[in-house]
């Protein structure tokens, strides 16, 4: 258990090591098991919806930059694109994907 020493530590410095020092902190009581156990990640549906929307945003950046010099077509095209995604969000919402399961 000598890992704790900082690299610049002089040789005469003795690590004041006792075994409890390297216990995982759990409010002062002895640690029970590992933290790397079966764990219910309750928001995986959020992350799926997130991927969809993040990709959408990446597509919107170039559209936004050149938007001013384009005609109405740019607006209606993006409206269709956003409409489909809004429908997707609505679908996920109605299906209960945005609830804390």
């Amino acid at each position, binding site marked *: 258990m000598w890992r704790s020493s900082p690299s610049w530590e002089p040789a005469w410095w003795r690590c004041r090591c006792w075994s409890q020092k390297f*216990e995982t902190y759990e409010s002062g009581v002895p640690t029970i098991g*590992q933290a*790397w156990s079966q764990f219910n990640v309750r928001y995986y549906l959020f992350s799926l919806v997130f991927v969809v*929307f*993040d990709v959408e945003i990446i597509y919107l950046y170039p559209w936004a930059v050149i938007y001013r010099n384009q005609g109405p077509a740019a607006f209606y095209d993006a409206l269709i694109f956003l409409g489909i995604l809004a429908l997707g969000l609505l679908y996920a919402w109605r299906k209960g994907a945005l609830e804390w399961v």
Partner: protein
Amino acid sequence: MPWYLELLRAIAGTILIFSGVAVVAAMFGVLLERKISAWIQSRLGPKHVGPQGLLQTIADTLKLLQKEHIVPRNADPTIFASAVLVVPLAALLDYVVIPFGTAGGGRPLIFRDLNIGVLFFAATSALVVVGILMAGWGSNNKYALLGGLRSASQMVSYEIPMGLALITVAMLAGSLSTVKIVDAQAHWWYVVEQPVAFVIFLIAATAEVNRVPFDLVEAESELVAGYFSEYTGMRFALFQLGEYGEMFAMAAMAVTLFLGGWRGPVLPPVLWFVIKLYALIFVFMWVRWTLPRFRIDQLLGFSWKVLIPVALANLVVTAYVVMIVQR
């Protein structure tokens, strides 16, 4: 310019940003936070180190520098140690695209005027979550793991409204370069044209930097200190640096995008920038002592069911108005 000069310039610039802006800002930010908290709660706050406690953070940093690094027996040492580098680095990268003012002859004072500046900012500020997840996982501590996982869900959810707010501004300015966005605000600050996007950006920024009312990641009354429970000494200080650095970067970006950047009458541009920056920082700290913490399902629901629909509607309305005005 030969490549080694370019490299030297980049390194020198990084050191300058690191020591000159971010560290000083973060150290001053900690002091400011404590002073403002004390003021709101009718206390005095740090008072004894230096005049009116001004040197308190320096003393704290010196103390933390002397402390031992403890790696818990069960932790993953590699991930545990490298997470410390990711968080402050991601926060420092944000400063690359922020124009702080003008140098002589109207040249913008910016480290690199990237033509994808806003996108770069969105990318680097999202990098913080990687460091937080690494810290949470690597510690092998239940509190830290919970904090890291909460952080992932929260940052992922609030990135989208933030991105939509950024897009609205990019559309008005017709550019992603932060310098051009500041130039486009010569007549009107975008906060006047885009109050909704401004509010959305501020809320999302608060969530991205894990501050109250969105501080579930490090909710001290339930998770000790969240993802950095196991860190000691300078590693702990580096996490704090990353957090405050990120907060200042978010505020600086809000100033750049919505409050006209360094623009203002009479006073020098850099001073204007700093005044606006600290006004926003004050708002962040004010909110901290005004609102209670959200519950995690309320937090995620608020982003997906309120902010994202509002941000989408705002984007469509803005696009429509821009089209009408153009015609």
